């Protein structure tokens, strides 16, 4: 059934409630209940109701505390965005939580793994109740609980050079939340071919790093050297990850996502943000092309 958006806009204006936040700033708010009622009445996706509302200067209450930092038009941009999160562990779980709360409209989640007890120390989506369950299925449940307007597409598989492009095709950008270096190179190649940015993040111990790679950038090779050399030299990461590190690095990665989607700030291109939480050190390292 094709719905004339004008009918919905009229409905929005009919029920809107004027709320004064402070003397200088005032805006109109729409509750989740009202959004769901309209969505049900017109058989229209709640995300589209939110977009129509924002376009009319009506702010869904769930985004009230985004406002000022994220304008109404920027909130629409986020709702119309589609991002791919590759890996659903320590980084991926935190990233998903943040994307859902921000109101990024569509998320592709990819991970072939199930939760186990060793994930409990850091993976925000892992609980004692969902051990042995699929990470991506649990991720979708969590996102729906936070923001039912966000569409989640899950892929219970591990990426490789043959499947990755098809899975992330159509995404505005990809987020690297993987747990090994060689698969990161596979992801980077796919992003280059699809011509989308990649937000890289990696952790070990109390150390973490973030970088943003655009398709034309040299990217991971600047950070890790060539994959061939890396394998030959048998360089490895220790893979000890306490909870604090992925939580922080995920936040930096999602800020990069905001910056790219909304064209805010300056992305960490040809730069590596390195953090040592133990010593409170944060450095931005310039990487030569």
């Amino acid at each position, binding site marked *: 059934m094709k719905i004339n958006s004008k009918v919905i806009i009229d409905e929005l204006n009919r029920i809107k409630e004027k709320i004064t936040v402070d003397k200088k700033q005032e805006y109109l708010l729409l509750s989740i209940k009202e959004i769901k009622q309209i969505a049900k009445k017109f058989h229209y996706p709640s995300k589209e109701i939110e977009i129509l509302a924002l376009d009319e200067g009506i702010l869904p209450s769930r985004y009230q505390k985004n406002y000022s930092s994220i304008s109404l038009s920027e909130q629409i941009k986020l709702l119309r965005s589609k991002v791919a999160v590759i*890996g659903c*562990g*320590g*980084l*991926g779980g935190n990233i998903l939580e943040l994307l859902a709360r921000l109101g990024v409209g569509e998320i592709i989640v990819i991970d072939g793994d199930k939760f186990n007890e060793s994930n409990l120390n850091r993976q925000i989506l892992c609980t004692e109740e969902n051990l042995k369950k699929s990470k991506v299925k649990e991720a979708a449940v969590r996102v729906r609980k936070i923001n039912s307007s966000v569409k989640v597409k899950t892929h219970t598989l591990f990426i490789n050079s043959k499947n990755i492009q098809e899975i992330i095709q159509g995404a505005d950008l990809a987020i*690297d*939340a*993987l*747990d*090994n*270096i060689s698969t*990161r190179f596979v992801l980077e190649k796919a992003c280059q071919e699809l011509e989308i940015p990649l937000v890289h*993040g*990696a*952790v*070990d*111990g*109390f*150390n*973490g*790093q973030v970088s943003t790679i655009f398709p034309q950038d040299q990217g991971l090779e*600047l*950070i*890790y*050297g060539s994959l061939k*050399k890396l394998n030959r*030299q*048998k*360089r*490895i*990461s*220790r*893979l*000890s*990850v306490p909870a604090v590190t*992925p939580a922080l690095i995920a936040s930096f990665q999602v800020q990069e996502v905001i910056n790219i989607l909304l064209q805010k700030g300056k992305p960490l291109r040809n730069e*590596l943000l*390195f953090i*040592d939480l*133990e*010593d409170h*050190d944060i*450095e931005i*390292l*310039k*990487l*030569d092309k």
Partner: protein
Amino acid sequence: MKIIKIELIVAGFLGNSKSTKNGPEIIKREYINPITVREVLTDAKIKLRFIGLIMLNGKNTNQDFLINHSCRIKLYPLLGGG
């Protein structure tokens, strides 16, 4: 005779013995002949397999780079987890 003075600074978990009170751990070495970064690291008994980014006087380089002049090298751990 030119002496090549090298200061090695280890960042993150590579510097297990570093003290936050005294600043980062700095390893000093002196050489007469040009030497590769890898040879310096081996000489300093740093485990090569845990090393990620290598910054030489603020520019990223690799273990094969031949050092001819005095310099400061900062080593960052290889991070691959998620």
